[in-house]
């Protein structure tokens, strides 16, 4: 009984997640399944969605800038270390 209930629950959960993923795709949020599930879990635990969304935005920005920085920083380091430019251009995808 419990297992069937559990199975039912699992089904329901999966369906809900599917729906949410669909919505998130509609809204073009850029969240993949994993992040979405984490977000949903956080929300269910009572986190303020405003705060969470601002965090996610910042994280995204940070990740972008970090990528830029690491790319340019890497380039400098590589330059300082005398690495060949060609190697760098091959190595940093976001250049």
């Amino acid at each position, binding site marked *: 009984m419990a297992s069937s209930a559990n199975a039912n629950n699992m089904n*329901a959960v999966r369906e809900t997640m599917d729906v949410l993923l669909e919505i998130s795709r509609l809204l073009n949020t850029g969240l993949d399944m994993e992040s979405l599930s984490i977000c949903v879990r956080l929300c269910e635990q009572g986190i303020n969605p405003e705060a969470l969304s601002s965090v996610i935005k910042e*994280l*995204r920005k940070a990740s972008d800038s970090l990528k830029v920085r690491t790319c340019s920083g890497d380039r400098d380091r590589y330059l300082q270390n005398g690495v060949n430019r060609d190697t760098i251009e091959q190595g940093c995808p976001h250049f």
Partner: protein
Amino acid sequence: MAALDQKSPNVLLQSLCCRITGKSEAEVAHQFQYAVRVVGSNYAPTIERDEFLVSEKIKKELLKQRREGDAALFSELHRKLQTQGVLKHRWSVLYLLLSLCEDPRKPSRVGSYGALFAQALPRDAHSTPFYCTRPGSLPLSYPERSGPGGVQISTSMGTSGISSLGVYSLNGPTPTPQPLLAGKYIFFKQLNDEVSKLLTGTVTFMAFVNVVLLFVAFLNPSFFFSPAEVGEAALVRDILYVFQGIDGKFIKMSNTDNCYKIDSKVVLCKSLRDTSNRLAELGWLHNKIRKYTDSRSLDRAFGLVGQSFCASLHQELKEYYRLLAVLHSQLQVEDDQGVNLGVESSLTLRRLLVWTYDPKVRLKTLAALVDFCQGRKGGELASAVHAYGKTGDPQMRALVQHILSLVSHPILNFLYRWIYDGELEDTYHEFFVASDPTVKTDRLWHDKYSLRKSMIPTFITMDQARKVLLIGKSINFLHQVCHDRTSPGKITPASKSTDSPKDAAELLSDLEGAFQGKIDAAYFETSKYLLNVLNQNYLLLEHLQAMRRYLLLGQGDFIRHLMDLLKPELARPATTLYQHNLTGILETAVRATNAQYDNAEILKRLDVRLLEVSPGDTGWDVFSLDYHVEGPIATVFTRECMSHYLRVFNFLWRAKRMEYILTDIWKGQMCNAKLLKSMPELSGVLHQCHILANEMVHFIHQMQYYITFEVLECCWDELWNKVEKAQDLDHIIAAHEGFLDSVISRCLLDTNSRSLLNQLRAIFDQIIEFQSAQDSLYRSALEELTLRLQYEERKKQRDSEGEWGVTAEQEAEENRRIQEFQETIPKMRSQLRILTHFYQGIVQQFLVLIMTSPDESLRFLSFRLDFNEHYRARDPRLRASLGATRGRRPSNI
């Protein structure tokens, strides 16, 4: 749900960070820290936890992106979600998704925010001691407010304002204009920063652009804050305050000059100064009106008319305030959006001049009205406002008419109430009909209601005002005196009274027609009803006629019979008379003559009155008839009227008595003439008597004719005509009083003819004397006659008996007696002569007096009295005066 609850929030957050940034746990420590802080500080959501709202927002967002199909899809999915019921906090998930929503059309702003984190992060990285601690121990659920992170973000936002401006100018899209004026201080700081940056080296294109832009902003004219000269905008703001009567920064009310003056310390160019002065006048006018309305609203005794005047002023001021509010909002809009509105639509003094021109004219009119109406109230106030309506300017006229209609509304209400209900509720004495509460009902008609002339508005004529007074008076009279309780609604089919000022306005515009018509209709109906009531219920006209018949000796047979019956009674001294005796005689007379067929109402009012007794009076002097009046009749036959009537009665009664006496004399003369034929010595005396008697008879005849026909009948005819044609009670009263006045003046009873009256009285006295003289003459003559007859009888008898007829002594005695008798004759003769002379003298004097009287009928009387110029021959005075003036109008003597 078990699967979802496994991990704590911190762990989840960390994994989220890893996921999004794509780094390992150690590398995202900093971001994780930041995330924890943010989530911890913003614990409670600021938005409404309404799932419906969020879903609607999402749909709107989708629709904004022109993705209707997607919106429908979303609705489907949302419904599915709701039916599944797995999630507890659906709204928060949806909200999260909404806030993460990105418009695919918008360009990515990733690059522009690069600077933000780049600056913040290094600082943070060095200052935090919790750099390497595990995320699990960090507090997440404490509601921390305004962590340092928050402040940092705002300042960084502030500093990035300019840079972002620079970036925007590079990128191209039109930015929304920043509120430059608000951040003046920050401007200067940033200008400083940017310039220093420029100078210290890192000359980037962005920094240079920033500096240029700042300078441009700085050079903007509205940005100037020079303490030396006042700008137009500041003046405009001040003026708007002044319009409401509040002192502005530069323009203040100067009490000494009673005007608005610009502070002399302020530097202002001449044109602006002049324009502001002109505009400030509006504030002055406003103050004036406001002062008046405020002071009047405190005045409790101001009355309804005054209150409606203040209300109308208030209304006008409200319109004015509305204009000011519009101007103010215009100014507000400018403030909010800075100067980028452009010069075309900003508020300048010139614009204000144009827009406030009309209100200025209106306020001027109102202020002039206020001045004129100072200290007036009630009808006076309405007159004042009406006077102002006589102007050629149609705008002003319309305004004043409007105010007039409001102001006269209470007055018209009063008026309608008065003429339709007869009620007067005027606590502040504003209406032009005044009621005197001390007057009792018997004087209601004459004294209780009067016109307050000062309160009659000028648009109501005197005639209308009098009619109005009369109508209300009649209604009250009916109610109180006639005890007629018919409701006034039945008397006049009252049209509805003015319920609204609109009706008042309509009425005022047509004062000649509708208003007059209303008043006239009410007047006719009410008066007609009143007269009906008086005539039918109270027999007014019958009483009038009864007065004529009894008090004015109209009923001849009754009067004659009464006199016959009263003669023996009244010959006695006055003190011996008893009223009840006389009343009894009166009753007898009434029953015996035609008077018995009169109305019982009338007969019961007839009575005898004994006047005041002075010593030596006979009954004739104190006797009088009386007529009792009460109730509504007493309004017409007032106490004064009754006293007039009694005086006239007295006079007429006396004249009648003279006639009566002379009739007796004549009778006696006729009878005794034959008898005394045998005494030839008396013939001279008797002749004299006859002549005198004839003169007197002639005189009295003419007087009676004059009184009866020229005076009484004519006046009565006039009175009757007027009474028949009378439209209201006032007419009747006036006609009646006129009648009495003319009767009195013609009967020589008024003060002018006192001398005439005295003469007449003297004549009457002479007649009485003559009567007594004649009586004594006749008595002695008759005595003598009887004695002689007796003597003759005895002689005859003795003859028949065969004796001597008369003895010598008898004869001698007889002769002696006759001699004695004959000696008395000259005495009698002289007495009569004196009497005659005296009488004729008086008559001549009388004639002289009436010749010169202003009354035409008296002059005609003199004609008749002296028709054969008998008196003229006797008296040289008369000759002169009669000859001079006979047939011509007398000159003023």
